[in-house]
């Protein structure tokens, strides 16, 4: 049992942190809101890290945590956490090109209910970044009960507006194409892995909200003293940091469980715990963070809302906190 990063992982984190602090500022996020092309320069840097999609889950989580910290727009998450594993599952020749960053992609799987369980619905929802990627991998339930993948180049996609412009979502219609069979369990496993990576990203976003709020509590003075000297504020920040700490730990526990190929039930529980813990941490950091900021946090000009938006959009993606708790409940009541 060892929760420490290796020196390579430390280096990866430092590299990501420095790069993203420089290349993904709040002004990039604001620019991307009006023009998706504003995030193109960022992708030119991030594409060099595409190989992480085919590597250990822990390493991808280390990087995703930093992309979450800056609410990075662009196809990095969709390509590394969703698209590459699907290509791997079907043995596609595109896998190598995706891991070198030559092509980007996303996965269309969720149906009308928005949850990422394999289905026969004719419209796929919550397809990430479908306007900018090269390929959409469409995953459907086969008539036999298994699953199939269809690779579509630049299919037409309808934008669905959400509060979060940093990760646009689309609807994609199921269309004809070569259906490549894939084991449904393999699809479930790769969705589970992507869920942990998203949870790592959310921990990064929650940490950004927390860091901004902690700094504000130290800087902002009222009644002649920093507001961070008031116990009401101190206890809020203590609770925010507890949720953040346990979410971080749950995410890397799950990532290690996936990498170690632990038994299925054990991995499933760890994945649900990670996403739900990250959801609780992100929501608390958002709500208490804006409360600590007071009126200035409620303004468009302050950057806080950029991360609140990302936090809530991610919390709803790949299973809400409540959905993951319910799946955990199913597992708890199923045993014996």
């Amino acid at each position, binding site marked *: *049992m*060892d*929760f*420490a*990063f*290796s020196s390579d*992982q430390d280096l990866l984190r430092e590299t990501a942190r420095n790069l993203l602090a420089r290349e993904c500022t709040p002004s990039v996020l604001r620019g991307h809101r009006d023009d998706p092309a504003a995030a193109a320069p960022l992708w030119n840097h991030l594409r060099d890290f595409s190989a992480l999609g085919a590597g250990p889950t*822990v390493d991808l989580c280390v990087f995703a945590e930093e992309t979450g910290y800056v609410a990075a727009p662009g196809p990095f998450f969709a390509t590394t956490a969703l698209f590459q594993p699907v290509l791997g599952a079907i043995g596609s020749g595109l896998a190598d090109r995706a891991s070198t960053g030559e092509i980007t992609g996303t996965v269309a799987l969720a149906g009308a209910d928005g949850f990422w369980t394999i289905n026969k619905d004719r419209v796929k929802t919550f397809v990430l970044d479908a306007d900018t990627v090269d390929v959409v991998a469409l995953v459907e339930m086969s008539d036999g009960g298994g699953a199939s993948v269809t690779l579509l180049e630049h299919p037409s996609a309808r934008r669905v507006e959400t509060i979060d412009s940093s990760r646009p979502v689309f609807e994609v219609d199921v269309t004809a194409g070569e259906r490549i069979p894939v084991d449904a369990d393999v699809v479930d496993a790769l969705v589970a892995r992507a869920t942990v990576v998203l949870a790592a990203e959310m921990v990064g976003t929650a940490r950004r909200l927390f860091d901004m709020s*902690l700094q504000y*509590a*130290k800087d902002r003075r009222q009644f002649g*003293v*920093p507001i*961070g*000297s*008031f*116990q009401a*504020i*101190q*206890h809020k*920040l*203590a*609770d925010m*940091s*507890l949720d953040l*700490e*346990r*979410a*971080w*730990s*749950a995410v*890397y*526990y799950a*990532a*290690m*469980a996936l*990498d*170690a190929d*632990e038994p299925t039930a054990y991995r499933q*529980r*760890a994945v*649900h*715990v*990670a996403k*739900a*813990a990250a959801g609780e941490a992100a929501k608390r950091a958002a709500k208490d963070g804006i409360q600590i900021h007071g009126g200035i946090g409620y303004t468009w000009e302050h950057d806080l809302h950029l991360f609140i938006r990302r936090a809530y959009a991610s919390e709803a993606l790949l299973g809400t906190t*409540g959905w*993951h*708790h*319910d799946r*955990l*409940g*199913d597992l*708890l*009541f199923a045993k014996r």
Partner: protein
Amino acid sequence: MHLAWEPEDEAFRSELIAFLDEHAPSETRAQRDFAGEDAGEDLIPKWARDWQATLFDHGWMIPGYPPELGGRNCTPVQTLVYLEEMTSRGIPRSLHFPGYAIVAPSLLEFGNEDQKLLAPAAIRGDTIWCIGMSEPNAGSDLAALSTRADVHDDHFVVNGQKVWTSYATHSQMCCCYVRTNPDVAKHKGISLLIVPMDTPGIEVRPLRHISGSDGFAEVFFTDVVVPRENLVGGLDDGWRLTQGSLAHERAGLWVEGVARLEQSIDGLVELAKRRGVAADPIVRRRIAEGYQRAASLSALGYKGFTSFAQGTSAPEHSYMKMATSELGKALYELGMEIQGPYGPVTDVDRGEEHGRWVNSFFVSFANTIAGGSSEIQRNIIAQRVLKLPRG
């Protein structure tokens, strides 16, 4: 980063399991369902005394210590494995923690050569100790204590009152914090004395717990004469001794708290099935939320332990103390809620599990108060970990 333990640590675990299978008395199993602290009618029953001595004699009482102190010089990681195995089986080491967990380590660290000789009997449980800390006007603000020790040439004279003193009714010895200098800042005039409980002038009045059992007491000191050589550490230097505890086990204290949470979750699932609410989506979700919080806290505990084992400071201790005690209380309350009208029933014939959930709930009130209340833990996190200014 990896989850597996090293082979030598798994070998250590196997050795412990073999010992437990052979020696652990059946009564140790009966402890697992309850919140701890509350041992019922007999505060320290004979089987518990015998078990503690057996653990000591086989080097399994404090495995990180050398054999003469009831251990086997194991590594910090092995101490964690030990705590995991003991707590997941619900096997207590001792039913009176002050002697082995606080007094002995303090004497070994700060005591003179004669005082160090008191440690083995404290760890083996042959001597029962209590600790005189809290007073009617010094609770969370411990440094405000006012029990006075007047300094004479070869002795002290102690006057004052201690309260919430656990095990005082059964103790032979007391480690007592006293004010030896009223003229300096409150932290700087405190000393620690070893006081035999049969010294004339000591009166112990049992205090009944909220759960109905006797566990702690008020202790009154009236002109109690304590020899000078019973001073531990320097005169007026007692404050830093209040921090004394098993430093090498502190990073693993959370293991017991988490094990109790996991036992509660298992118990809640079974309870919901018996009460016919296993299909109720609200019940299922609330139990699952408890599982998620317990599991993420467990992961946080292991993360903190990694930092500790590598020698970096681990602030996780304050998080774990606060969070496990609060979650534990909530889970016991959920157990009552699942029983609906029968939640408060303790009747052996009608209630669930002899009132397990309501009794544990009441006992668990202590866990968010004793040893630094949840509010004090939040202050510590805010000021020491997050570096926020003191109010």
